[in-house]
Structures are given as C-alpha cells and as structure tokens.
C-alpha cells in the first residue's frame, strides 16, 4: 500500500491544480540565532570599549555573559574579534524590513571569510505586527552570530523567510507604486482595478517588504514576502509612479542571494 497523498494547496486545488500544500514548510523553520542577544546600549558600550585607550569602560552584564568583555572591563579576545569585524569590515550587507511600526534589520559585516551578523527579530518569524512595547522587543535587541561567509545566503534566507511556495504569475505586472506601498502597510488595502484572480489571491496573503543592499554591488533586491504565495520582486518601470510586481520562484531568490554574497566576497 502506498503512502497517502499530502495535503493539497487549497487555492490551486480550486483551479484544478492538485499540487502539494507548501504553506507549512516555512512556518516550521523560523529564523534561529545561536548567538547572544544584546541591546543597542550593549553594542554602544562594546564599541566604546574598543576605542578606549586610557579610560576604562564599564562592561554590561550582557557583554560579560556573552564573553565579549571582562568582568573588570576591557575586551576579551572574542570581543576584540567582534569589534574588529564591526569597525573594519571588508564588505557589508544590510537587509531592511519591518512589521507594522517596528523597523527590522539584518546587518552583516564581513572580514577574512567570516561574517558577523546582527539581527533584530525576523519579520518572517513574527506571527503578527508588534504593537506597543513589543516594538522595542522586536527592534531594539539584536542577536549576534558569527558564520562562515558562505553561510550568509542561508542566514539571509532564514531571516527573510525564504521557503517553498508556488509562484503565481500575476496581472497586471505594472501597478501604481502608492497602491503597492499602501498594501504593504495595510492588508485591508483593496487590490488595484484589473487585478486577475492570482493577484487578488496573492494580495490577500500576509505581506512584508524587504530590501537587500551590499557594499560589493551597485544593485540590490527589493522583495515582498507574500507568505504562502512566496516572493515578488518590486522593480522600476518606465512609467512614472508605477512599479513592476513580478513573482519570483524561491529557487531564483536563493540563487540571487548566493550571487550577492559572492559579490560581497570580492567587493
């Protein structure tokens, strides 16, 4: 007896496309840091300790616990390594995103084949847009991870929630920029006139915007994570006030992340 069929994608099944429901894979693999959590104030103290020559900078408990500063002040070897990479990187990568009013970032500094990542909460891992004090929790604390440079694409993929999804070509491909940005901010925003069924479906999914830029390349990425509907690229068009909106298969996004990191290595 063969194994039972997997659950099918509910939207595509209505169109006669009986393919697997991929929506649970991304949820099951949230961004996880293996490093310490530090506040912006901790990072400020760490940077001042690296600059201090004669003046003693008092450590914070978090920096001592993370093994970056000594109890009596001064940097540990790990602390010196971290501050060297942070203050004198050979390349940088920054991913900016947000959920609700919480600005979220992933900053990667690269030096000697090693990458240091400072990450706020992942926009993909927040079940809902943070409110009130949750905004501080999401945006003001960062986790610190040291990974191999070649591990950066996976780190970014995890942080932005790159996961299997059925990419649907939507129409129209060119939309008023204000309408798209309004939808990013407010899920109640109506789809534009002329939206086809796929675009209306994608429009109804949870969205967040993320951008990626590096010191090694002139161009970056501007993407919308549309939850179970995968990723869409926002591109410039020849029409003033309009943007291109194009579904991009997850495998293509992955290849772009790998290429981007490669530029970082040479940039």
């Amino acid at each position: 007896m063969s194994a039972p069929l997997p659950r099918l994608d509910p939207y595509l099944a209505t169109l006669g496309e009986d393919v697997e429901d991929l929506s649970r894979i991304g949820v099951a693999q949230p961004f996880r840091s293996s490093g310490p959590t530090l506040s912006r104030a901790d990072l400020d103290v760490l940077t001042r300790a690296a600059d201090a020559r004669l003046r003693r900078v008092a450590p914070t408990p978090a920096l001592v616990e993370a093994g970056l500063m000594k109890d009596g002040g001064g940097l540990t070897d790990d602390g010196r390594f971290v501050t060297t990479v942070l203050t004198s990187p050979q390349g940088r990568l920054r991913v900016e995103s947000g959920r609700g009013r919480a600005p979220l970032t992933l900053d990667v500094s690269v030096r000697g084949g090693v990458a240091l990542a400072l990450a706020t909460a992942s926009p993909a891992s927040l079940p809902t847009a943070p409110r009130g004090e949750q905004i501080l929790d999401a945006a003001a604390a960062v986790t610190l991870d040291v990974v191999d440079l070649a591990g950066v694409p996976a780190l970014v993929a995890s942080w932005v929630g790159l996961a299997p999804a059925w990419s649907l070509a939507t129409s129209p491909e060119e939309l008023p920029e204000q309408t798209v940005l309004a939808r990013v901010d407010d899920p109640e925003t109506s789809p534009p006139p002329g939206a086809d069924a796929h675009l209306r479906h994608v429009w109804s999914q949870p969205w967040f915007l993320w951008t990626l830029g590096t010191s090694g390349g002139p161009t970056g990425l501007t993407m919308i994570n549309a939850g179970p509907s995968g990723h869409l690229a926002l591109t410039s068009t020849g029409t003033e006030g309009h943007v291109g909106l194009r579904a991009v298969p997850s495998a293509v996004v992955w290849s772009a992340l790998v290429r981007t990191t490669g530029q970082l290595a040479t940039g």
Partner: protein
Amino acid sequence: MIEAAGVSVELGDGWERVDLPGAVLALAGPDTASAADGTTFRPSFTVIVADAAPDADVRTLGSEAVVAAGLVSDDAHVVAYDVWPLPDGALGRRLVVAATYGAVPVCVTQWVGLRTDPSTVTTVTATVPVSRYTGLEGVLEDLAGQVLAAQVRG
C-alpha cells in the same frame, strides 16, 4: 567520458566516478577549500533508481523528500520546492536545501522523477559547497535533467 544512468557524461577537471552502493551513478568533484577555516569539501552528484509502488504519486515522493531534507543537518533550511517537467508530460519535483556539513555551508539540490510501467523512482542529488554553487548550479541542473529524462523514458 562515461556512460551511465542513460546519459553520457563528460567529466570536468577534478571530477571522477566513484563507487556508492545502491547508486547507478555517483560523481565526486575536486576537493577544494570551501570554508573560511580552510575545510575542504568535494561536491557530489548521485543517481539512485528504486522500485516504486504501482500507485506511487510524485507528490507523496516529493513531500517525503522534504521531510528527509530536514534530517540533513540540524540547521537544514528548505528554501525551494518546484514542479520539475519531464518528458511525455510526466512531472517530477525539485527541492533546494541550505545546510551545513561540518564547517562547510552547502546547498543540496534533489530532483525526484517517477516512471510508470515499470514503476520506478529516480532520485538525483547534487551537493555543492555554497561557495561554488553559482558556478556549478547550471551544469548540474542540466545533467540532472538529462538523467531524469533518460530514466523516465526508460
């Protein structure tokens, strides 16, 4: 040039055929430094053909591959899963997984194709260090496509 799994393969520099029990074809690439600490890694390409139940369904096989991918390493992250077109209207699946082997960040790409009469499932797996992914992605994808097409045609 070697002939196996229904295709002729021109091996690139440093690539060789290796013995892997159960595989109809296994290739290993050159051992190169693939992590900042100098750890080396050999990219690989394997083809395994196994009997399948007469009523096997590629959707089930693909979903099982996703579950198995999570076991590749503690930090395995499935980044993509697609329908993979095969000859004669048959459909396969491809999944892409980011993982770490020891100190080496790798990308594991796996294609699954189902053939009927006789019912067999072909699994092609390419494991490449991320540092070499951009250069090898297209070549290995093309080879996987040829292997799957040959296996599905029979």
